[in-house]
């Protein structure tokens, strides 16, 4: 897992490729805890379960799912921390 923290207001990338469920979700939760409301987070996950688990968690936690983009061999799941 590698992580890129860019300038405020821009997207924070969590590269969880190679990590297995629930690893990518747990990495997103850790990043959400560390972020401010309004932060956009993009999780890269090669575990197909993440595209199901992460939106469910985002819904329960009251954040906003911006989208899921299918990349070459992984999914990019983009989330906004709303509160």
């Amino acid at each position, binding site marked *: 897992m590698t992580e890129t923290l860019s300038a405020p207001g821009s997207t924070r990338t969590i590269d969880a490729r190679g990590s297995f469920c*629930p690893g990518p*979700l747990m990495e997103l*939760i850790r990043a959400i*805890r560390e972020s401010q409301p309004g932060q956009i987070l993009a999780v890269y996950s090669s575990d197909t379960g993440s595209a199901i688990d992460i939106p469910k*968690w985002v819904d*329960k936690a*009251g954040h906003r799912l911006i989208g899921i983009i299918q990349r070459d061999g992984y999914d990019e799941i983009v989330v906004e921390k709303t509160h």
Partner: protein
Amino acid sequence: MNRILILGGGVGGTLTANLLARKLRRRVKAGGVTITVVDQSGRHTYQPGFMYIAMGGERADRLERPERTLLDPRVGLVVGTVTKIDERTRTVHLAEGERLGYDYLVLATGSRIVPESIDHFVTDAHHFYTADAAMDLRESLDAFDGGRIVIGIAGLPYKCPPAPLEVAFLIESELRHRGLRDRSRLDYCSPIGRAFTIESVSEMATPMLEKKGIELHTFFNVESIDPDRKVVASLEGEELPYDLLILVPPHKGQQFLIDSGLAPAPGGWLPTDRATLQVGGRPNVFALGDATDLPLSKAGSTAHFEAPVVTEQIAAAVEGRAVDERRGAYRGKVMCFFEIGDGKGTLLQFDYQHPPRPPKPNQLWHLGKIVFNKTYWHTVPRGRV
């Protein structure tokens, strides 16, 4: 001279040392190989027994033996606290001032609990990950005469994944037998979207929770504990009141692994090859057991099945031959018993390619776990099973 240094005298470290001593006995006898275990306490603890202290029937003194008594006489033992690994000089530093050189390093350093990382955990939540904590929980259960019990997980990954579910089932069973079930409510909190990380086990456990009247709360990541209101709150915004709160504490790898640049912060789990168990591509450094970042159960069973792999990898290097792929590649094998209460249990057996297919719970698997616990000292650390 080949110096094999093993950090940690738990299941993985002890078994690896004993297997290496047997496999390389001629070279050890001739003085060409040394095998040394470094352990912080010099006491070997059978940690799966802690849960049984909390659930009744087990004593702390039966769960500990001197590490020396479990080691092959050809293995050296140093009791000391590791503070640093200097890869450049291939030296391990101890707090006591000693420096130990190595040619091959085995990191069997386990995991550590960090309950203090959540405010009020230490004072208001119970757990069963040390003998003392398990005894405290037992006393609180003895004093419990009805009310609300919340059982949850305050961080992934953690040791012995089935344990909190087992505790929920065993407590439910105990309350029924004590005539307290009608006066009690049980909540089970899982940080992910189902009851257990492995889907097939979740499919088995979820109807059991329903049948036993234990309410399942998914996506409950513990955020705070309010000791005045006696409420545990999740990051997801859910609040659960409790009379007795039982949480698996957050776990981390060892700090000196982070400080020495072998494991990334904040978790401290060693980046480990899933087949060779080499750490970060280093040909002479291996990890096993809880210390790795492998997507597997942190359990003694995992270390038990990894030890022969590390042994073959190191033995092949020492003997200057190719690794025997049948023995020198880990395939993710894990096997553990799973208590469901009322004297019944089941078995979880799986590897990287095959998820567990737990058999229908019965008394035999429960008894199997009891027998395994009793015979552990004579079997696992000595490489007899």
